[in-house]
């Protein structure tokens, strides 16, 4: 099957491309990039005014299947990813039951092949049941398709266990993704410890509870040589730790979420909106500024959403009882375009690097570029489309977005995975 994408502004810093160009795809692979390409037989799509980039990857999503399909499942999560402009996502293993063995990895891989055009990458649990105690059969899971290991949602508390897990993961050359939360210090904290916890009268989640774990895991990366990826980093001091680790040449990377970039603890007002209850929590304005700066300079490698769908009745509980998390797949790109690219804080090249190239590199996936021979995983963006985030407008099964009501400029219009459209002119396929 042939596909000709005509007239988009094609941007890919990996091949030094930023020009209006045509892209010809045959059998899922890019066969030509250039001006004035034509097609005798196949599908031709006019993309004048659009921006075409290598397919975006979100390396941190909760698809909730198996076990909590009322919040999300592989199919609906895949659709939400397509709507948001992503060609691939990395599913977190803290499902019910946990993805901590090859059979469970196999379930997700097979289900995804059956129901999702979006590529569903799988991460396995670092420890059995995400309990932080015994190592999982990582070798078996890698053979079954797992590309990374993590106890996301909790973090391994015991340093000796974390060390062994990182050493063992190194056997297979896959990264360990770390949710940094020192439970002793964080306790029942639900918002940033400081102004928000005092004003709202709820237990605080201190920045130190995250930073101590980041420092520990960097030290363990140095000790073990294992590639370490810090998930959802939130503080200026945490960023400084990663910056120093990188300067020392350690294999350390990190991600930031749109909500930690674009919201702060000050947004949680007296209405106790549980959509703003996150783990880790929204931090200070100074932290958010430091995150945006670190993203621009490259200390923060990539943007990931930590897409965390929850049912309406769960988020309707008292703030201290409601579950943590916000959805993110369908708003991330538009937020980055509106808040960072349009303001000049992030270049288009940097957006492609942080949302397409870096996640693939961190996860050891084959690169996707706008060049002959690359797999045709492509995202097309309408940079002029202005739209408002509404509760009713999601492909996700859940509507617990922290950004309901925001008006954003720019949105994915087409997404191609292996040459097939998963999003066609704004419609999920």
């Amino acid at each position, binding site marked *: 099957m042939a596909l000709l994408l005509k007239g988009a502004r094609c941007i890919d810093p990996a091949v030094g491309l930023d020009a209006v160009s045509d892209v010809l795809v045959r059998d899922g692979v890019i066969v030509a990039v250039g001006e004035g390409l034509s097609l005798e037989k196949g599908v031709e799509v006019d993309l004048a005014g659009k921006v075409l980039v290598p397919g975006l990857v979100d390396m941190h999503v909760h698809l909730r299947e198996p076990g909590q399909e009322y919040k999300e499942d592989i199919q609906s999560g895949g659709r939400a990813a397509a709507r948001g402009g992503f060609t691939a996502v990395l599913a977190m293993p803290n499902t019910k039951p946990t993805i901590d063995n090859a059979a469970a990895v196999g379930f997700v891989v097979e289900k995804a092949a059956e129901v999702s055009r979006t590529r569903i990458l799988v991460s396995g649990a670092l420890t059995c049941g995400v309990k932080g105690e015994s190592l999982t059969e990582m070798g078996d899971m890698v053979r079954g398709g797992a590309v990374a290991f993590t106890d996301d949602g909790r973090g391994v508390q015991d340093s000796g266990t974390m060390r062994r897990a990182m050493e063992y993961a190194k056997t297979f050359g896959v990264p360990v993704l770390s949710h940094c939360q020192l439970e002793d210090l964080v306790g029942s904290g639900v918002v940033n410890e400081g102004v928000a916890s*005092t*004003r709202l*009268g*709820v237990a605080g989640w*201190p920045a130190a509870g995250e930073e101590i774990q980041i420092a520990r895991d960097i030290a363990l990366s140095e000790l073990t040589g294992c590639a370490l990826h810090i998930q959802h980093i939130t503080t200026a001091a945490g960023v400084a730790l990663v910056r120093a680790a990188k300067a020392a040449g350690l294999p350390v990377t990190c991600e930031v979420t749109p909500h930690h970039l674009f919201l702060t603890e000050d947004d949680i007002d007296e*209405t*106790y909106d549980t959509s703003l209850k996150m783990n880790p929590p929204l931090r200070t304005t100074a932290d958010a500024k430091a995150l945006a700066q670190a993203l621009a300079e490259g200390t923060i490698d990539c943007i990931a959403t930590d897409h965390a769908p929850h049912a309406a*009745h769960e988020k309707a509980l*008292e703030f*201290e009882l409601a579950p943590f998390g916000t959805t993110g797949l369908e708003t991330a790109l538009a937020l980055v375009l509106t808040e960072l690219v349009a303001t000049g804080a992030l270049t288009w090249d940097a957006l492609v690097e942080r949302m397409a190239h870096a996640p693939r590199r961190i996860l050891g996936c084959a690169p996707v570029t706008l060049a002959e021979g690359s797999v045709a995983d492509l995202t097309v963006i309408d940079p002029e489309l202005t739209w408002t985030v509404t509760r009713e407008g999601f492909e996700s099964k859940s509507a617990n977005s922290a950004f309901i009501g925001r008006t954003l400029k720019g949105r994915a219009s087409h997404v191609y995975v292996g040459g097939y459209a998963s999003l066609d002119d704004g419609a999920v396929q």
Partner: protein
Amino acid sequence: MGVLSTEHLLNIEDLSPEDIYAVLDTARSFKEVNERTVKKLPTLRGRTIVNLFLEPSTRTRTSFEIAAKRLSADGINFAASASATTKGESLVDTAQTLDAMDCDLVIIRHRYAGSPYILTRNMRAHVINGGDGKHQHPTQALLDMFTIREHFGHIEGLEVAIVGDIAHSRVFGSLAPGLTMLGAKVTAIAPPTLLPARPDTLGAAVSYDLDSVLGRFDVVYMLRIQQERIEQSPIPSLREYAQLYGINTARLARLKEGAIIMHPGPVNRGVELSSEAIDTARNLLLYQVNAGVAVRMALMFLLLGGDKDGLAA
């Protein structure tokens, strides 16, 4: 909307200084009623007031109950043990159920901060926050401000110390901003383990050393040390706490002339207050309890649409 600029009292900062004075003035009239032999007014006859107490409380609930009865409202107690909340019913469901029964006013006490807002989003009734987690307890703050104002004749310019477990105190959460709003100067006194992260955001200065500042205050407001919190070890022992922060005979003697002691009750005798410090005439503990009924009557009256002129009825 009635005399007050708000339909609900969820947070002390829902009230303007004018609102607070309106409540305190109205409460003064009701206090006189409470001194009569027949303490009942027909003012809220036919109105339904629900005490939704999802956390054990005897003192506060009783105070609201008496207030409702003295205004001839029909008061209903919806207690935690008798409710469906123990069977997994959510607060949203409870609110919608009560709403379907056409209540006029709901007083909620709950162990979770912000829960009164769930009620206002899910029912038509007026809502009074009777204490939500560690967040706010605005009616306590109002009765405290009433007490201070009746004693000194004013609040502006007074120096108020609030001493004790401030980190876990909803009383502090309402009283500190309330007093600050009316021009008093509030100092939180406790070791850092019993302080919230940023007391300044609630309008309070901080001291760790009671003895060095004690003589400065017109009001020394002692919070209850909750024995169950001690298990989390914010202080090494009640003994050391009493030594450092308790009001005893020696510290009584060093209070500023004319200074008063207050406490939201119930007191741990011998911990935050020695028996002498409880029984002294400078301790307005029981005056606060008495004022509580009048202040709650005033709030019910004002929120349910009364105005001061209607009091004559």
